[in-house]
Structure formats: C-alpha cells, structure tokens
C-alpha cells in the first residue's frame, strides 16, 4: 500500500469530514431539540446548492459569498417546514414523523429535478482553481476553504447555543420541554429557530465530491459499504452515538 496514497486519502477524508460534520450538526440540532429526524436534510441541501449555482451563474456572485444568501434562504425554508408540518407532529409516533419527513423529502428532491433537470451542474469559483502542496500531498483550495468555513460556522453555532438567550432556551427545550415552558421559554419559537438554524447549516455546503479511506482500500464505489457497515455497527452497539451516554 502506497503511503502517499493513504496519506492523501486520510487528508481528503478529513477535510471532507469537516463538511459532513456541518451537515450533521444541523441534523443533530433538529433531532436534539425536537426528537424529530429530518429525513429531508439532504434534499434541503440540494436546494442550497442549486441556489448557490443560480447565484453564481445568473448573478455572478461567487459561491463563497453566495452562501450567506443560501443560508438565509434555507433558514426560511426550514422555518416554513417547521411551522407548516413538523410542528403538528412533534408529539406523534416516530412512524408518522418519518413518513411526513419522507414526504417533504420526496417533494423537495423531485421539485429540484423538475426545476433544474437531471444534468449535473457545476459551481465554479475563481477562488477554487488552485491546489496547495503539503510535502507529497496536495489539497484543493476549494476543499480547504469549505473546510475552514464549516469549522467557522460550527464554532459560531456553538457560541450561539451557549452564549445567547435563544440558544440557551434551545438547550433547555432539548433537555426538558415542559421545564423550559415553565421558566418562560417560548418552546414553539425555539423549535422554529432550531429547525431554521439546522437547515441553514446545510445551506453553506458548496462543493460535493466525497472521497474517503474506503476509496483507497476498496474499489471507489465499494466505499459506501464502509459507511453503511459503520452505521449498522453504531446502531447496534452505541445507539446513543459514539460519545453519547446510553439512556438509563
């Protein structure tokens, strides 16, 4: 096994992992606060990406600036979905929540298909043309920028959750919705904000090429097996997550 190849795989995987983690942070925020799994998360992201593409193609706005608009638009989309649908089923059985979110996902995904067609679109930014060499390893500037952005946004979210009134109410509502209501938090507003912020996180995602260690050790298309295998293992052995405490 070529050590450069392994190092390259690790580095790419790590950088892209930062982007995935931002998506996951958004998902977790929604799940953590409301106990609703946003099955439409990826489909919201599709709209964020197409918006970035539209802004760059039609208005000539660089995608690295356009993401602010995208995040704002996705916040609104999240707000609408929360107020329109999710709010009504927060207390419904899991099955109903899953089916509802599946419905939302189908609508968002296929509306994008109808609106933009099946051909892939590419976002180009003058910022992302170059590559940087670190010893024998190379890094796309685009990927580095995206990674940096993802880290900054995650840090901002952490500050929001720990330092602001709304963020603290959110954590309170996640911990105990009834208690949060008792101390005067507007749980309905908190839910709406959580869903919006969760959706906005994926609005920042711009570039989408996944590479990970699976691609180095297995054939490139088999790498998905690693992800799904890992998912099954975690579901079975650490259902509260790798770092989560098991509920008593």
């Amino acid at each position: 096994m070529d050590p450069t190849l392994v190092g390259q795989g690790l580095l790419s995987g790590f950088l892209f992992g930062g982007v995935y983690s931002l998506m996951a942070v958004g998902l977790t925020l929604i799940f953590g606060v409301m106990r609703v799994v946003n099955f439409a998360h990826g489909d919201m992201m599709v709209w964020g990406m197409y918006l970035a593409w539209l802004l760059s193609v039609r208005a000539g706005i660089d995608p690295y600036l356009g993401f602010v608009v995208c995040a704002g638009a996705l916040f609104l989309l999240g707000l609408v979905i929360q107020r329109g649908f999710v709010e009504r089923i927060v207390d419904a059985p899991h099955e109903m929540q899953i089916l509802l979110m599946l419905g939302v996902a189908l609508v968002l995904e296929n509306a994008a298909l109808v609106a933009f067609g099946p051909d892939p679109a590419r976002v180009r930014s003058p910022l992302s043309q170059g590559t940087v060499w670190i010893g024998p390893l190379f890094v796309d500037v685009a990927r580095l920028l995206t990674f940096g952005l993802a880290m900054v946004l995650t840090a901002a979210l952490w500050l929001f959750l720990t330092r602001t009134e709304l963020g603290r109410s959110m954590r309170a509502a996640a911990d105990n919705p009834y208690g949060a209501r008792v101390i005067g938090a507007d749980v309905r507003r908190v839910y709406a904000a959580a869903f919006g912020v969760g959706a906005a996180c994926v609005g920042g995602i711009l570039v989408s090429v996944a590479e990970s260690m699976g691609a180095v050790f297995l054939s490139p298309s088999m790498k998905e097996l690693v992800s799904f295998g890992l998912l099954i293992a975690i579901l079975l052995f650490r259902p509260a997550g790798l770092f989560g405490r098991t509920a008593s």
Partner: protein
Amino acid sequence: MSLVKLLVLLAVAMLAALPWVVGSYLVTVMIFIFFYAYLGQAWNIVGGYAGQLSAGHAAFVGIGGYASALLSMRLGLSPWIGMWIGGVLAAALGAVIGYLGFRFGLRGFYFVLLTVAFAEICRVIALNVDAVGGALGLYITFTGNPRQFQFQDNRAYYYVALVLMLAATAVVREIERRRFGAYLTAIRQDESACEALGVDTLRVKMLAMILSSFLTGLGGTFYAYYLFSLQPNAVFGIPLSVEIVIRPIVGGAGTVMGPLLGSFILSPLAELSRTYLAQSGWTGVHLIVYGLLLIAVVLFLPQGAYPALRRLARRRA
C-alpha cells in the same frame, strides 16, 4: 353465504373477466396495481400489523429476483422453482435484519435506518460484483416459454399477478383472524404491555419479518420475469422501498384491504404520470405527488384511506 363473501366473489369474478373486455394498456396498468398491492400486502404484515417500519423491503424483491434469474441463467433451473429459493433467501436476510433489529431493541427510526442500511449494502454489492451482473444488471432473454415464467400474452401475467395479490391477501386475512394477528396488533399498540402479558414479542416479530420478507422475495421473481431486466439501483434502491411502503400507508396500514385500496389509488396515478409526464421531461412529478400524498395522509388521515372509508360508511348506515 354472507353478503360480504358474495361481494368478494363478485369482485374476483369481475377482475378475472376484465382482461377479455378491456385493451392491452389497461391490462398493463392492472398488472402494476396487483403487483404493488401484493408487495404492499407482504410489507403490511411486519410494517402495518406489527408496526415495525421497514424501509428496506426493496432488498427482498432484489434478492428474490436475482436468485431466480441467476439460477435460471446459470443452471437452467426453472423460475417456477427458483422463485421459492429466492423467497427463502429473502427470508434469510429478513431473519438477519429482524434478529439484529429486534434483539438489540431498535425502535422507530433506528429500525428504519437499519433496514435502509441493509438494502443499500445489497445494492452496492449487486452494483460491484460482476458475477451477478455488476452495474449492467441482468437481462433475461425472452423465449415466451411458460415453463420459464415467460408468456406471449400479457393476460397470463395479469392472472399471475392477480393470484399473487389474492393469495397474499388471504394470508393476511388468516393472520388477522388468528392469535398471531392479535399479538402483532398488540405489539404495534404497546409493545411493553404486550411483553408484560407474557407474549414472546421477539419470536412474534421475527415470524412476521420472515413471512413478510419471504412473500416479498417471491414477488422478486415476478418483477424479473415481467420486466426482463434487473438493475441494482432499481430493485435494491430506496425508491422501490418507498413504492412498497406508501401504498399500505395511504390505503391503511394494518388492515386487510389497506394495501389493495392504496394500490388502486396510487398505481394508476404513478403509471399515468410515468407515461404522460415523463415523456415531456417531467420525470419527477409522480414522486412529488407521492410526497404530497404522504404529507396529507400523515396530517389528515393518519390511519389511511380504508379506515376512513369504513367510518364514513358506518355513519351512513
């Protein structure tokens, strides 16, 4: 003979006579209605009655279809025999998924994720292993030989699909009348209470999963020999799982008639939009309709169309 029995017999007789009256396109639409009603009915056992939301039932269709197609292509085994082997293999996978999910107590969306993950793993394997066709999938040469599960006349497929649907419905009706069916409903409504009353819920859920995946696996053979091709993304993919799940949900999960009603509502819709809209470049439209229907059902008819119709009928009477 009761009125209900008479009505059922009449309906079956009408369905049996139908292909001799209507044109070939309508026969095709009816085949899809029956086939998806069959798959929905098979899902209904574990997903509807037992309330274990499997979103990976496409995997069983795929395994059943691939097994009988490969056995016929490589060993010359007739699909009429191969379909049972496919069913058993699908049931074996169902047993593995069920055991892991139920033994480890995965409920709600954790179980959904588990079933999706297994179906996706099957899809990726089928895509990448060239011995089973790889990304190209499998193509079955048309011979028109009834011994090879192939028919010159579309009407033959019609009757096979009709028999499949009626048989699965009879099985589900029988389950509902037995103690086993009562256990399943009890598990759906309150699993802990059911367990506290001494029901071996793990065993009951396993049986439901195995039976459901077995029946779904049998359907895989029909899929393969009606469409003459098996594509990994089509037979193992999430879209097919959604197609399987959505009909019983819309019609009424956990009822005998729900999957049939759901399929009679949705399959013509899907077929029409596929025929007319997809040609004019509106590929995703029927899935948008599915999405909207799912949302509407969850918000307004959480028990599905069939229970709502019954309530309406009772109020009239």
